[in-house]
C-alpha cells in the first residue's frame, strides 16, 4: 500500500475548472491520510508543472502519483515519463479522466460533476495505493525478418528490410514471384506492365545478399515469439534437375505432351505440364507437374537426365525476430448462375478479361467471336447488405474504368456499358472516370434490390437493368461480353496463416490490425505485422504503402537487438492454481502452458506472447489469475472509491470567496510560468514581445498564458500600442 501519494488536479485552463470545483477538491484530498501532496494546477501538462511535479516527488519522497486531467489517451505517457524522470516507477502512476468523462459530458450539472470528479479521484487514489512497481519485459531479438508472400507488397518490404541491414526470408507459395500484379497487363496510373514491375523488383532483390527467396514454399509450423520466432517451411520440389542443361529444359518444355489447368490464366487456356507462369516469369526455372506426367513414360524417359521426378519436398526451419504477412487476396469467384456466370457462355470476370486482353494483342476474341461491346456489372461480391461481403472492395471501380480505357486504346471501335451502384474513383482516379464518360462509355446506376439480369436472346446476350437516371426505365443492353467486376476477398488459406500465427481475423475474413488509424499494420501478436491486401481491399499503391509501413516498424523493432514489452500481462498465483487447463483453452495466443511448480502442475504464462487481454482471468475457477494493473484489489477499490460519500463545499462558500473578492484566482499558488510572466511585466504597459524577452519565454507561450490569465483576472489588457500591432497588458 502506498503511503505517500501526490494528487494533481488540473484546471485545463477552464475546461475542467469551469464545471468542476477543482480548488475545493484539491483542498479536500489534501486531508487524506496517505496523500502528501494535493494541488490544483492550471495546466498539468505544461512544462513548468511537469518540473514542479518532479521536484515535489523528490522533495516529498512520494511513492505514487495521481494526475486528474484529460483522457489517458492523451497524456498517460506524458506523466509516466514525469514519474520516470523523478525516479518513480511509472507503474505507480494513475491518470484520472475528469475532462472527457466528467467536466465535459456533465457541463450541464456542475455540482454533480464535482461530486463525480471526487469519486473518480478517490478511485484513482485507491487504485494507485495498490499499484506495484513493474519493470518492462526485455527480450532479445534476432535481426531477421520473415516476409510471407512475394507479391508487390512483400517484395517491396523485403527490399526495404534488407536495405536496413536485416536478414530477410521471403517465402512465396507459388513457384514464381509477382503475385497478382503479374496478371495485369497495365497498371494504373503509370500504365506499366505488371510483369516488368515484377522483374524490376526481383532484380533489385537479387542485389541484396541478405535476402533469401523461397518459392513453392508454405509455412508449416510456428513456434517462439517476438524476437525469436521459429518458422518451419516446406519447399515443394520443381522436379527439374538443378544441373540440367538450360537448352534441354527448354526442349522438354516445348515437347511436353501433356496439358494441365492454367491457374495463372485463370483456366481460360491450358498449359504444358512443364510450365512457367509466363515466359519471363522469375525465378527462371520451370516447374513440372509430376503427377500429370505419370503416364507419359516415353517423354519422361527421353528427358530422364533433365527431370528429377523423384525429388522430394524439403522442410527448413527459419529463425526470425519479426514477421510481415503480405499474403494478398483472392478474386471473388461468382457462384454458378450469378449473373449467368458459367451458365451463359460469354460471361466472364474482370480478372479473366484482363487475362484475355493480354492473350489477344490485336483483336479481342472470346469463344471464337470478336468482341465489340462489353457490359461491366460492378459490385459483384461486394457491398452485399445481405451476403457475406458487406465491404466495398475499393479498387474495382478504378480497375474497371482503367480496363475500359485500355480496351478502347488497344482495340478500335469498342463500346462499353457500366452497370454500377456508386462510382468510387477517389483521388486522382476521378480523372479517369471523367475521361471514360467523355469517350462515350455509358454508365447505368442500379440499386442492390433491383440487380441487372443477364439473359440470352437468340444469338445475343442481353443485360436488363432498371436505369436509375431515367426514373428506372427498363433498359436492354446488347453486349458481346458481360464482365463481372468481382471483389477482393480474403484468401482461402488466410485461416491457415491466422491459425499458425494467431492473427485475429475480422468479420470480413481479412486479417485485423490493432487499430485502423493508430496501429494500422500492427497485430495483437507482438512482432507480427500485416501489409497489403491480406488486411483488406487496397490498390497497388496502398498495398505498398502499408507493407512499407510494416517494414519500417520491423526495422525499428529489430534495430537495437532487444525490445522492451509492456509488463501488463497475466500472472498466475501458483499456490492457488490447480491446473484445470481452462485458461489455456480460452487463450487465443497459446501464451499459457502447463508447467511444473514444485510437486504440482500449474499454468505458466509466456511473457513474450501474452497480450494482457485478460480473457483467461474470469474463467479461472480458483481466481488464480490476475492481470497486472487490473488486479482485484485495484478494480474493487476503484468501485469503492466511486460510491464513497463526500462532503463538498459549494463553490463560492468559505475561504475561496475571500480570495475571489480580491480579484485573484482561487488557486493556492500560480503556476511557475505565470510567476515568470508576472516577473517579466516590469511596468504598466507591457507588450507580448517585451514580456517574452524579459521572462525569457517563447512569445507563443506568453500569448497563450496571458489569455488564460486575463480570463482569471490576473492581468488585463490596457489598450494597444501606437502601431496597433500589440495589446498592452498590465497586472490587475
Amino acid at each position, binding site marked *: 500500500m502506498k503511503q505517500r501519494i501526490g494528487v494533481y488536479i488540473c484546471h485545463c485552463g477552464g475546461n475542467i475548472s469551469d464545471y468542476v470545483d477543482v480548488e475545493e477538491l484539491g483542498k479536500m484530498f489534501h486531508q487524506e491520510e496517505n496523500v502528501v501532496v494535493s494541488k490544483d494546477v492550471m495546466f498539468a501538462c505544461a512544462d513548468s508543472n511537469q518540473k514542479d511535479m518532479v521536484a515535489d516527488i523528490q522533495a516529498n519522497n512520494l511513492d505514487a502519483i495521481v494526475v486528474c486531467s484529460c483522457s489517458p489517451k492523451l497524456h498517460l505517457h506524458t506523466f509516466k515519463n514525469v514519474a520516470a524522470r523523478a525516479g518513480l516507477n511509472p507503474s505507480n502512476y494513475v491518470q484520472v479522466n475528469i475532462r472527457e468523462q466528467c467536466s465535459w459530458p456533465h457541463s450541464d450539472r456542475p455540482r454533480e460533476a464535482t461530486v463525480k470528479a471526487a469519486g473518480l479521484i478517490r478511485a484513482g487514489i485507491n487504485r494507485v495505493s495498490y499499484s506495484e512497481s513493474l519493470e518492462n519485459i526485455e527480450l532479445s531479438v534476432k535481426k531477421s525478418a520473415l516476409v510471407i508472400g512475394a507479391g508487390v507488397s512483400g517484395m517491396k518490404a523485403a527490399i526495404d528490410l534488407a536495405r536496413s541491414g536485416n536478414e530477410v526470408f521471403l517465402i512465396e507459395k507459388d513457384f514464381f514471384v509477382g503475385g497478382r500484379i503479374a496478371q495485369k497487363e497495365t497498371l494504373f496510373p503509370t500504365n506499366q506492365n505488371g510483369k516488368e514491375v515484377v522483374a524490376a523488383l526481383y532484380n533489385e532483390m537479387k542485389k541484396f545478399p541478405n535476402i533469401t527467396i523461397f518459392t513453392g514454399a508454405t509455412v508449416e509450423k510456428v513456434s517462439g515469439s517476438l524476437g525469436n520466432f521459429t518458422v518451419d517451411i516446406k519447399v515443394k520440389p520443381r522436379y527439374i534437375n538443378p544441373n540440367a542443361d538450360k537448352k534441354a529444359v527448354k526442349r522438354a518444355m516445348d515437347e511436353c505432351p501433356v496439358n494441365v489447368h492454367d491457374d495463372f490464366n485463370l483456366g481460360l487456356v491450358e498449359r504444358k505440364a512443364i510450365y512457367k507462369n509466363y515466359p519471363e516469369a522469375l525465378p527462371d526455372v520451370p516447374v513440372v507437374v509430376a503427377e500429370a506426367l505419370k503416364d507419359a513414360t516415353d517423354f519422361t524417359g527421353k528427358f530422364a537426365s533433365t527431370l528429377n521426378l523423384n525429388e522430394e519436398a524439403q522442410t527448413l526451419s527459419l529463425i526470425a525476430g519479426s514477421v510481415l504477412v503480405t499474403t494478398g487476396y483472392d478474386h471473388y469467384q461468382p457462384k454458378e448462375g450469378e449473373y449467368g456466370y458459367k451458365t451463359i457462355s460469354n460471361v466472364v470476370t474482370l480478372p479473366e478479361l484482363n487475362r484475355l486482353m493480354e492473350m489477344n494483342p490485336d483483336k479481342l476474341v472470346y469463344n471464337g467471336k470478336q468482341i465489340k461491346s462489353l457490359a461491366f456489372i460492378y459490385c459483384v461480391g461486394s457491398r452485399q447488405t445481405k451476403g457475406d461481403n458487406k465491404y466495398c472492395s475499393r479498387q474495382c471501380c478504378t480497375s474497371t474504368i482503367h480496363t475500359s480505357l485500355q480496351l478502347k486504346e488497344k482495340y478500335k471501335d469498342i463500346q462499353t456499358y457500366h452497370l454500377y451502384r456508386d462510382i468510387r474513383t477517389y483521388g486522382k482516379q476521378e480523372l479517369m472516370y471523367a475521361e471514360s464518360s467523355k469517350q462515350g462509355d455509358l454508365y447505368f446506376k442500379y440499386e442492390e434490390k433491383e440487380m441487372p439480369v443477364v439473359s440470352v436472346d437468340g444469338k445475343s446476350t442481353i443485360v436488363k437493368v432498371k436505369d436509375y437516371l431515367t426514373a428506372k426505365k427498363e*433498359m436492354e443492353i446488347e453486349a458481346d461480353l458481360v464482365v463481372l467486376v468481382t471483389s477482393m476477398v480474403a484468401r482461402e488459406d488466410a485461416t491457415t496463416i491466422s491459425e499458425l500465427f494467431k492473427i485475429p481475423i475480422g468479420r470480413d475474413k481479412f486479417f485485423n490490425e490493432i487499430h485502423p488509424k493508430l496501429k494500422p499494420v500492427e497485430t495483437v501478436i507482438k512482432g507480427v505485422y500485416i501489409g497489403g491486401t491480406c488486411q483488406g481491399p487496397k490498390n497497388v499503391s496502398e498495398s505498398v504503402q502499408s507493407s512499407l509501413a510494416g517494414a519500417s516498424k520491423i526495422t525499428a523493432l529489430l534495430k537495437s537487438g532487444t525490445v522492451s514489452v509492456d509488463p501488463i500481462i497475466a500472472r498466475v498465483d501458483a499456490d492457488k492454481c490447480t491446473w484445470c487447463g481452462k485458461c489455456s483453452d480460452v487463450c487465443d495466443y497459446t501464451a499459457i502452458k502447463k508447467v511444473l511448480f514444485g510437486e504440482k502442475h500449474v499454468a505458466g504464462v509466456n511473457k513474450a506472447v501474452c497480450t494482457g487481454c485478460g480473457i483467461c482471468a474470469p474463467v479461472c475457477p480458483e481466481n488464480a489469475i490476475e492481470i497486472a494493473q487490473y488486479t482485484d484489489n485495484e478494480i474493487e477499490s476503484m468501485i469503492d472509491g466511486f460510491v464513497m460519500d463526500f462532503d463538498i463545499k459549494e463553490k463560492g462558500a468559505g475561504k475561496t470567496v475571500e480570495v475571489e473578492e480580491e480579484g485573484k484566482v482561487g488557486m493556492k499558488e500560480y503556476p511557475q510560468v505565470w510567476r515568470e510572466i508576472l516577473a517579466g511585466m516590469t511596468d504598466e504597459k507591457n507588450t507580448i514581445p517585451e514580456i517574452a524577452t524579459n521572462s525569457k519565454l517563447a512569445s507563443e507561450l506568453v500569448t497563450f498564458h496571458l489569455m488564460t490569465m486575463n480570463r482569471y483576472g490576473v492581468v488585463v489588457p490596457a489598450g494597444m500600442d501606437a502601431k496597433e500591432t500589440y495589446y498592452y497588458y498590465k497586472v490587475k
Partner: protein
Amino acid sequence: MSRVNPKFATELSKYGSSDFNACFNCGNCTATCSLSTADSSFPREMIRYTTLGLEDDIKASLKPWECYYCGECSSECPRQAEPGELMMSLRRWLTAKYDWTGLSGLMYKSLPLSIAAFVLTFVGVLAFAFNADFDLEHMMHVGHLFEAIAIASIMVVIFVPNIIRMWYFTIVKPGTKVPFKKYVSSMGEFFVTMFVQKRALDCDDNRFRWFEHFILVIGYLSLLFTTVFMDWFSTQYLAVNIFGYVMSAIVFIVTVDFVNSRMKKKKALNKHSQPSDWFFVIWLFLMGLTAFMTRLFIDLNILETNKWLYILHFTVLVQWALIIVPFGKWTHFLYRSFAMYFAKLKEK
C-alpha cells in the same frame, strides 16, 4: 423495355451536338434552368435519353421546344457537356424527323448539299432573267407572284404534312387522349407563342434578347404582309411605303446584331453556330437589306439602270422561300408554336 443504342450519339453529332457524353447526371442544368418545372423537367432527362439513344422517347418529347436556349445550363455544367447545345441539336434532329421529304435532314448533315442547293437556285433565277430578257417589269411581276404561290404551296405540301407527323409522334403515338374541345380551347397558346414568345420572357437571359427577337418576328411578318398583300414595290400609298421601309430596316438591323453575337461567341448560345444558323441569319439580313434597297432604288428611279439589285433580291427571296423556310431553321417558328400548343393539349 427500350434497347440502348449508343450509335445515336454519332448520328446526333452530325446535327451539331458536342460533348454530352461527359455528363454525369448531376442535374445542375435542370436545377439552374428557369423554364424547367417539376412537371416538365429538362435538360438532364433529354441528355440521358440521348446518351442511351432512346429515339422514340425523344421523338415523343416536346421538351426540346420548351427550351429557349439562354445558355445558363451550359455555363453551369461542371463537365462542360453543353446541355444547351444538345437541346439545340435535338431541335434540329426533330425538325429532320418531322419533315416527310427527308430534305431537312440531308441539308443539316451536309454543308456541300446545302451550298449546291443555293447555287442551283441562283442559276435558276439567272436562267429566268435571261429568259425574260432582263425585262424589269416582267421580272418584278413574276417575283411578286412567286412569293404568294411559294407561301401557299409550301404550306400545303410541306408544312401541313409535317405538322401532322409532329402531332402523330407527340400526341397520338404515346397514346395521349385529347378531347376535341381541348383542341379549340388551347389555340390561344399557339398564337401567343407564335407572335409573342411569352415563354422566352421567363428565361434568365436579359429581356433585350426577347425584345430583339420579338420585333424581328413582327418586322418579318409585317414585311411579308406588306410585300405580298400590299404590293409594297408598286404601291402608291405613302403610308404603306414608309411602313415597308421601317419593317425591312428592322429586319436587317436586328439581324446585324444577331450575326455579330454569333461571331463574337460571348454567350453560350452563340458559341456553336451550325451552317443552318448562319444561313438563317444572313439570309434574313439580305432579305431585309435587298428589299429596302430595291424600294429605295425605285423611289430614286434608278432601279431600271441597276437591274442587278432586283436579280439579287429575287435570288435571296427564292433561296429563302425554297430552302430555308421549308427545310432550314425557319421551321422553328412553326414547330415551337405547335409544340407549345401540343404541350398545352397534353396538360392534365
